């Protein structure tokens, strides 16, 4: 009977204790797994969303993320200069404003309206109907259609809440030409798209067509195209998807990375403590047996291995159980976090990646070994004769 079999029998011998240990490890392991998913989840999810758009460069007025910094004063003019570059395939200006989408009967939905111009690129995918081609046309998302009870061909009044309008914007009537999905649609939020000139009118500033940012599609090499745009001297900031991700990682996702790191540390410490206590008490309760085995000729390595295997079995079984448990918990926690305002429906905080499983397994293995160190030392340093004597006297 080898050390593994003996360790297994030891666990089975005390089902309540072992079961609780395994459940405890499964719970903390699940949390650990979730924190690993969280640490990279936002990055992976955002990257996937960025890549899903037919643009690989964003041009903004400053190094802030689109929508965060000042507008580009004359979007179409900047777009025209950029479009003239040989390395540029397409340019589209994009402006985003908040607005009420209202029906004549008073039903309304609050959400965001995108105004696009210059190029033919669209940050939305048409589901039904036709795209906007001219003024007073609008495409809306399914949520907006549902809430306002609007269908293709119907009229919809837009009352915008533009950031830099000098006067209260007028309420403007639009014809719904299609239903579309917007990449950055938030759950339960109305979304709409129109031309930049339409949005400027809706904002009450028909003379000015600012843009939050320009979406640029390069002919191939996004980095060199971004450099070309910078070289134009427009005092604008061109950033590729990679650079945008770098900015996000540095500025926007710090909180989640930090909480992920802190909780990973806590959960591992917790698992360590749990297993160490469990094994130490277990070993202390059978010191006599261990001493007897040593007296019978069992080597130090063999009795130490018994303890290590016990740890590996508890952490291993608990760790395996923690994966499906963690997956369920990730869905739950993702649902909670996605209730934050303005979180795109397609964005996920917890994203499965095979690497997370391997890192999880590695961390659990390290935990199993580290947790077993103290009880292993107890067993390894056990004075056989003294223990046998004490056990009889005790």
């Amino acid at each position, binding site marked *: *009977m*080898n050390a593994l079999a*003996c360790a297994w*029998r*030891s666990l*089975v*011998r005390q089902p309540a204790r072992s079961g609780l240990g395994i459940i405890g490890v499964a719970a903390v392991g699940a949390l650990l797994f979730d924190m690993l998913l969280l640490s990279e989840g936002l990055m992976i999810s955002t990257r996937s969303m960025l890549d899903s758009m037919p643009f690989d460069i964003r041009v903004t007025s400053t190094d802030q993320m689109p929508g965060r910094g000042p507008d580009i004063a004359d979007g179409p003019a900047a777009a025209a200069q950029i479009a003239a570059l040989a390395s540029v395939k397409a340019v589209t200006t994009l402006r985003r404003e908040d607005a009420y989408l209202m029906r004549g009967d008073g039903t309304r939905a609050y959400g965001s309206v995108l105004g696009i111009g210059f190029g033919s690129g669209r940050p939305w995918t048409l589901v039904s109907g036709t795209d906007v081609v001219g003024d007073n046309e609008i495409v809306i998302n399914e949520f907006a259609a549902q809430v306002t009870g609007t269908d293709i061909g119907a009229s919809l009044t837009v009352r915008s809440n533009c950031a830099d309008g000098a006067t209260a914007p007028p309420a403007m009537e639009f014809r719904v030409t299609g239903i579309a999905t917007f990449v950055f649609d938030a759950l339960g939020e109305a979304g709409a798209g129109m031309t930049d000139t339409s949005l400027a009118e809706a904002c009450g500033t028909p003379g000015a067509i600012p843009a939050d940012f320009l979406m640029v599609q390069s002919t191939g090499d996004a980095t060199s195209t971004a450099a070309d745009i910078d070289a134009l001297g427009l005092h604008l900031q061109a950033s590729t998807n990679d650079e945008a991700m770098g900015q996000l990682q540095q500025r926007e996702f710090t909180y989640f990375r930090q909480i992920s790191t802190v909780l990973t540390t806590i959960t591992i410490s917790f698992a360590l403590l749990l297993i160490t206590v469990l094994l130490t008490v277990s070993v202390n309760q059978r010191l*006599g*047996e261990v*001493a*007897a*085995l*040593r*007296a*019978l*000729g*069992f*080597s*130090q*390595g*063999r009795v130490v291995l018994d303890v290590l295997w016990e740890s590996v079995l508890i952490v291993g079984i608990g760790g395996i159980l923690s994966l499906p448990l963690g997956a369920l918990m990730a869905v739950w926690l993702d649902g909670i976090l996605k209730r934050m305002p303005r979180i795109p429906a397609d964005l996920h905080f917890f994203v499965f990646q095979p690497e997370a499983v391997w890192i999880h397994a590695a961390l659990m293995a390290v935990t199993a070994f580290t947790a077993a160190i103290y009880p292993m030392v107890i067993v390894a340093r056990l004075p*056989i*004769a003294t223990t*046998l*004597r004490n*056990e*009889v006297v005790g």
Partner: protein
Amino acid sequence: MSDVIVDAANVSRAFEMPAGAVVAVRDVTLSIAQGEHAAISGPSGCGKSTLLHMLGCVDTPSSGTLCFDGSDVSTLDDRARSRLRLRQIGFVFQRFYLLPMLSAAENVELPQAEAGAAKDVRRLRSIELLEYVGLEHRANHRPSQLSGGEMQRVAIARALANRPRLLLADEPTGELDQATSEQVAVLLDRVNADGTALVIVTHDPDLAGRARRVLTMKDGQIEQEVTR
């Protein structure tokens, strides 16, 4: 191979205590030969178990020389001493120390597995030994399902698993009633008669009286030695 299995020459064992060193065994010289049947008796705390532990190579003398099969035990590292105990020495304890999660047969198999015996070989040997101690019908029972006497008989079978030359028993009847003690004593006699040297530490005069050589200890020294 010499006739003497274990040879202790002027061995002493002192334990460091907060109040000062306590000498449990003082300058004892003793040899145990092949097939010998010896008993060590004496009052509690006289050092008989400590002497037994030294003879069984689980404890090392503070001074003096202890040789097993002519080799100085103090020159052996822990691994070598473990190997020596595994193959040459059997231990029987007062509290049996059977592994509770294993059946009687598995307990007997355990030292053989550690010694590297093949599965079918050790299984046959376990059955053979359980028959030897009269417990073949209890082979699949866990220790918790056995009586004290039965547990000690299984422990004796386990001690004999690797065919040791020397069997050391520390108060083997200490937790048993008189009738059961008698059964265990008879079994130990039989083990000795079959060629295994036997050293028993006991308070029980009846058990000690069955030995051919009786050593009486007092204050860490052999006060009296009677050979029949």
